């Protein structure tokens, strides 16, 4: 028997370490001989902490939301009693969350112990490396990736084989294979889960990629905000070196390759290849003009190929199963699967890996089980600060590169933030512009100043000070910023504004002309009033920080609108739903 506690960041944040410690304490107290192991992110983040109990025949019982106080019951009934402990196990409906997915990238996440290379090897790990370096030429590896149709999973969706081929063809003996693990997109966490849950799949992908382009050194540029990911990567690299998978003469093939970690220091613009290279070289992470492309002149002016974590994690599977098997998933233009980070106003949030081309609503309703508190689905934001908001009316859109781009959003990293009727779309646009304005490196005028100007306009609209012509001004600025910026950050920064204007223009107009926030979310535009449901309990008037509410005991209360600061405290404390916000 074995107990496995999911300890990705979500699990740890939900208290998984305390849960694991409680299992260890009780198991030793009862004198049981049962191992407590750890694994990475299972994917059902909304059910953390998750504990898997394998009996001696290997049958699995999955327990969810296992806080320390529930541990003793599981120990008594299952570990000692031998019968699954009722009431704590995962429900059938929650199992669907995983069963409806196709897991290639996340094939090992939540199943193996990421700190034990033996478990990765037992799951078929490093077979692909062996196959590539001992029985395939670099050209054959690139050809296999070409057949698979794999496109970069970091945002731009550029064909992976094409980049590899360009780096392979570039003259020079010293080349670099770089992994971009600087997941800077707010609202995306798939790379973190791969790094924490299956670091060897990334390492293996880099070894194979390095072999294909002719690199002997790899670099992983990883966010310093992901300490657990860095820790597990270091362990994995050390174990791979001991086994001879990294280092000289890998699998007696004569091929040498090793990897170093470089911790990023927090700059969204470093997702841009040339900015990432500048950062690797210890400079401010500012992009430069292309060409020359990194494939010709990259890290220290040497040919360099950069892919993201998810792209690399696909590679071993493709080499092991063949490019055609991968290409069988997805659509003709967007092959394979993609991992999405489902979050926001969704019932079941977490990591979801599905074949490309699945309709959006299938992801949101079929897997995510719809909107939290059964509110109305309004829009889904895809592609983060470079992407856009797709309205509920387009929920049939297949999720692939071409169709999502047509809506004005992008697949990007794969962040899917679901929004309901209470989310203000103007505020969403303001939120993203605030982000890109802060993250603009400042090199191009239009990006540096233009995003600031757009933010100012959006701010005044949400404060109820919007003017006639503001929408048109936003559109004009947006097109100039797109034209006048050198890198992807500036070229895509206006997308959240443009898509919200395109699909939710009425909300902008409500703010500007009627001074109303359609979603009742922008504070300055709210009016709180008390209805006749009021019982005169006086609670709101006692809690009001500015004494704006008057009324006698057991009589209808009233809010003095001149004094009200719209803090919403009255609505928060009212037990009779007597306060309405409009």
């Amino acid at each position, binding site marked *: 028997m074995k107990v496995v506690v999911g300890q990705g*960041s*979500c699990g*740890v*944040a*939900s208290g998984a370490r305390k849960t694991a410690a409680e299992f260890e304490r009780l198991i030793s107290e009862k004198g049981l001989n049962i191992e407590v192991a750890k694994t990475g992110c299972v994917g059902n*983040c*909304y059910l*953390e902490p998750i504990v898997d109990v394998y009996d001696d025949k290997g049958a699995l019982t999955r327990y969810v939301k296992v806080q320390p106080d529930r541990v003793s019951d599981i120990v008594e009934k299952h570990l000692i009693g031998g019968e699954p402990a009722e009431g704590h196990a995962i429900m059938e409906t929650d199992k669907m969350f995983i069963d409806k997915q196709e897991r290639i990238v996340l094939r090992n996440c939540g199943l193996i112990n990421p700190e034990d290379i033996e478990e990765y090897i037992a799951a078929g790990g490093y077979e692909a490396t062996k196959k590539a370096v001992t029985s395939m030429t670099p050209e054959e590896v690139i050809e296999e990736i070409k057949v698979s149709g794999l496109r970069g999973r970091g945002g731009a969706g550029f064909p992976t084989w094409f980049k590899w081929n360009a780096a392979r063809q570039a003259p020079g003996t010293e080349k670099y294979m770089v992994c971009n693990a600087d*997941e*800077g*997109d*707010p*609202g*995306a*966490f798939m790379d*973190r889960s791969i790094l924490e849950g299956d670091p060897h799949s990334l390492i293996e992908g880099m070894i194979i990629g390095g072999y294909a382009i002719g690199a002997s050194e790899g670099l992983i540029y990883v966010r*310093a*905000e*992901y*300490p657990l990911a860095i820790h597990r990567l270091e362990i994995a690299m050390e174990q791979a070196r001991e086994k001879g998978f990294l280092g000289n003469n890998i699998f007696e093939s004569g091929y040498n390759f090793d990897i170093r970690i*470089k*911790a*990023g*220091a*927090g*700059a*969204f613009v470093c997702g841009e290849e040339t900015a990432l290279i500048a*950062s*690797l*070289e*210890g*400079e*401010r*992470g500012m992009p430069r003009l292309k060409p020359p492309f990194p494939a010709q002149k990259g890290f*220290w002016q040497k040919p360099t190929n950069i892919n993201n974590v998810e792209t690399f994690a696909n590679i071993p599977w493709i080499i092991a199963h063949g490019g055609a098997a991968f290409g069988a998933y997805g659509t003709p233009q967007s092959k394979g699967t993609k991992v999405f*980070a489902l*979050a*926001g*106003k969704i019932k079941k*949030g*977490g990591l979801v890996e599905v074949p490309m081309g699945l309709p959006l609503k299938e992801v949101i309703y079929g897997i995510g089980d719809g909107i939290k508190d059964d509110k109305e689905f309004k829009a889904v*934001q895809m592609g*983060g600060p470079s992407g856009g908001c797709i309205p509920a009316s387009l929920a049939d859109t297949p999720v692939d590169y071409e169709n999502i781009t047509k809506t004005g959003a992008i697949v990007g990293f794969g*962040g899917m*933030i679901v*929004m309901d009727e209470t*989310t203000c779309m103007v505020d*969403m646009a303001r*939120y*993203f512009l605030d*982000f890109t304005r802060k*993250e603009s*490196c400042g090199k191009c005028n239009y990006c540096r100043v233009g995003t600031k100007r757009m933010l100012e306009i959006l701010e005044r609209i949400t404060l109820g000070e919007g003017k006639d012509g503001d929408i048109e001004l936003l559109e004009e600025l947006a097109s100039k910023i797109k034209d006048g910026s050198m890198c992807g950050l500036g070229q895509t920064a206006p997308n959240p504004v443009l898509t919200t204007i395109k699909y939710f223009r009425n909300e902008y107009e409500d703010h500007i002309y009627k001074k109303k926030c359609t979603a009742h979310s922008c504070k300055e535009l709210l009016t709180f009033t008390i209805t006749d449901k009021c019982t005169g309990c006086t609670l709101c008037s006692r809690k009001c920080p500015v004494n704006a509410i008057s009324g006698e005991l057991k009589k209808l209360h009233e809010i003095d609108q001149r004094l009200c600061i719209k803090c919403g405290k009255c609505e928060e404390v009212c037990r009779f739903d007597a306060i309405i916000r409009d």
Partner: protein
Amino acid sequence: MTCENSSCQCGCSSNAFAELAPVMEKYANTPGSLIPILQKVQDIYGYISIDAINYISEKIGVKPAKIYGVATFYSQFRLKPIGKYLIMLCKGTACHVNGADKIEEAINEELNIRDGETTEDGLFTLNNMACLGCCSLAPVMMIRSGSEDETYGNLTKDSTKKVLNEIRNREA
């Protein structure tokens, strides 16, 4: 407090950065190591002082202005000391949609500090972060003290205040 090296104008004592000597030794001959050096400095001292910038400059031969440029470019680096507890409030998209602004309000109300500020008693510093990557638990904050990180998820205004009060009572 004088420097042995007469070219140094920083007014530091020559032993002030003794802990950094092995770091410098490790990175001095590897080009492009400025960022890892600054990360180590911040790990050891909690922030990057102007004296530290001058010290690094002297050791690796990069101008202080350039080091300052790099240190101010990246959001990880701080040029001011921080409180004993660093509150990292997630302002990622999922947290924003789920009410991160309310959590910030609760922190403002309870501690009277805004993004980047430290409480007068030196106990708390608030830093807004772009994303902590625990989107399913939104809204989220992480509180770091020394090398210990504790993450708090599914926050409400009340639970946020409770967490802060517990820490304050523990420290009282």
